[in-house]
């Protein structure tokens, strides 16, 4: 239970937040923190747990966003069907990326994932009959759970909280299960893992496909929540970087890390946007400058992320306390 204390506090606070306030701005922030935290967790399944760093995950996010929007706009189908379709398409795309991961390493794999997302970006922005091209698709609002038209922010909060919890549990599963241990072996040393009877390549592909499907689900929720799908946003490299950024800031390969990263990054963005746009509209890019610098500093000096830094702080204080006790006796 103790290892989940952080998660219990975090998700617990989110759950009781609507009791304390109905402030739309505040609730919106919580929804987005949970949403980006969950989607970054999905990235973490591939980038952290399987060690396959991708900068093309926006591809899956976009597939999820578009599947639901297109089915609703063209055929009036429920976004839940779109969610399933998006996940199915993303599994196929994930298998392709997974295949690439077995042929390419390091920078080559990263480049391939970027190119993959770019292909989808161009397709979505040019295939006018299906996607309405570069103008993007407004997602029609229809009241009701089946239509994912939740009018109240509180309903959205509980929906995303459920999604976030699910992602947290998926990650915990990857820490304590047989598959999780085997995946850790593959991540650490694929040759050695194979010698121990682990089908390393297949396991990586499975993890990437899982990650893809979950990212896609996040894309569907996001599109329904925001109500608009813009190809240049949902397939953008900036978005792929955001997933990685949240995770790296919070702690790669940890279940809580992506959520911690999301708290910091999402809050920072909202806060800076609000305060800086009061000063001058041109300053809205400042939060991105900070992200960039933060990324450079974190990967170099705090590669374990906030989780690692906090953990180190606690052990350090525990040791200091211990020393103090020793000194007194």
């Amino acid at each position, binding site marked *: 239970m103790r290892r989940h204390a952080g998660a219990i506090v975090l998700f617990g606070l989110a759950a009781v937040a609507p009791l304390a306030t109905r402030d739309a701005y505040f609730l919106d922030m919580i929804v987005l923190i949970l949403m980006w935290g969950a989607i970054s967790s999905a990235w973490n399944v591939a980038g952290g747990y399987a060690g396959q760093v991708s900068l093309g995950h926006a591809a899956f996010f976009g597939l999820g966003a578009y599947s639901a929007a297109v089915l609703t706009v063209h055929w009036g189908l429920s976004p839940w069907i779109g969610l399933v379709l998006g996940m199915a398409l993303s599994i196929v795309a994930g298998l392709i990326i997974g295949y690439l991961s077995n042929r390419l390493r390091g920078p080559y794999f990263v480049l391939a994932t970027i190119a993959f997302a770019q292909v989808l970006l161009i397709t979505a922005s040019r295939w006018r009959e299906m996607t309405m091209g570069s103008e993007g698709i407004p997602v029609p609002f229809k009241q009701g759970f089946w239509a994912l038209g939740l009018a109240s922010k509180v309903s959205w909060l509980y929906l995303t909280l459920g999604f976030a919890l699910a992602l947290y549990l998926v990650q915990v599963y990857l820490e304590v299960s047989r598959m999780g241990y085997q995946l850790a072996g593959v991540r650490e040393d694929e040759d050695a893992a194979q010698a*121990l*009877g682990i089908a390393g390549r297949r396991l990586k592909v499975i993890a990437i496909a899982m990650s893809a499907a979950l990212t896609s689900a996040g894309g569907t929720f996001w599109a329904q929540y925001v109500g608009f799908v813009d190809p240049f946003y949902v397939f953008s490299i900036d978005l792929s970087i955001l997933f990685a950024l949240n995770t790296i800031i919070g702690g790669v390969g940890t279940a809580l890390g992506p959520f911690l990263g999301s708290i910091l990054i999402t809050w920072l963005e909202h806060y800076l946007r609000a305060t800086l746009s009061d000063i001058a509209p041109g300053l809205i890019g400042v939060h991105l400058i900070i992200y960039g610098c933060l990324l450079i500093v974190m990967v170099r000096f705090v590669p374990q992320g906030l989780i690692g830094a906090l953990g180190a702080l606690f052990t350090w204080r525990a040791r200091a306390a211990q020393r103090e006790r020793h000194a007194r006796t």
Partner: protein
Amino acid sequence: MLALESVTKRFGGLTAVGGVSLDVDEGDLVGIIGPNGAGKTTLFNVIAGYYRPESGRVVFEGRDLTGHPPHEICRLGLTRTFQIVKPFGNLSVRDNVMIGALTRVRSVAAARTDADRVVERCGLGDYAGVVAKSLPIGLRKRLELARALATRPRLLLLDEVMAGLNPAELAAMVELIRRVHAGGVTLVVIEHIMAAIMRLTRRIVVLHHGEKIAEGVPARIARDPKVVDAYLGEEFTLE
């Protein structure tokens, strides 16, 4: 148990292993020696499924393994250790071994029990919770062996597990290998230095430039002029 039928593996123009045949019976403990670059490690890579040979076959318990991937071969009961050790550096010793054990048992709890037993047996009990990358080389070699044992192999290929050890560690490792063998695991042991292997086995195979140049009991091998020639310029002592 294991039969190599004139196995050949080339890298570009270089023949790393050329037409090597070898039979290993259940319960054997075979030593393979040869100077650096003789093709010993490459031979293991072929047997364990890391390289596909250009010609020849690898037959294990009547089954042709040629071209099968390493993980399948391991599940059939044949695995290897790496000369350049490959620990899962950021995981604890126990977790390293547990990942091996999970190949035989599906439950994580059972694998942990298994792993603890193997860790203990390999004399790593005091280090079970230590992160693998912080182990000194002697213990890393032991971890390499422990992890492989956890997959419950019937035939185990050991690639220079004794190299780089100090005399005390060496004695312990020899002892450990003996115990593993006594426990019913058939072993093929690569050693660069002959002295170490003399203490272990009665049957030695000598590789040179990828070819098998001699096979037999240590005393005869040591006197074989081809073997002496092969080792010319390198240390070659019986003790």
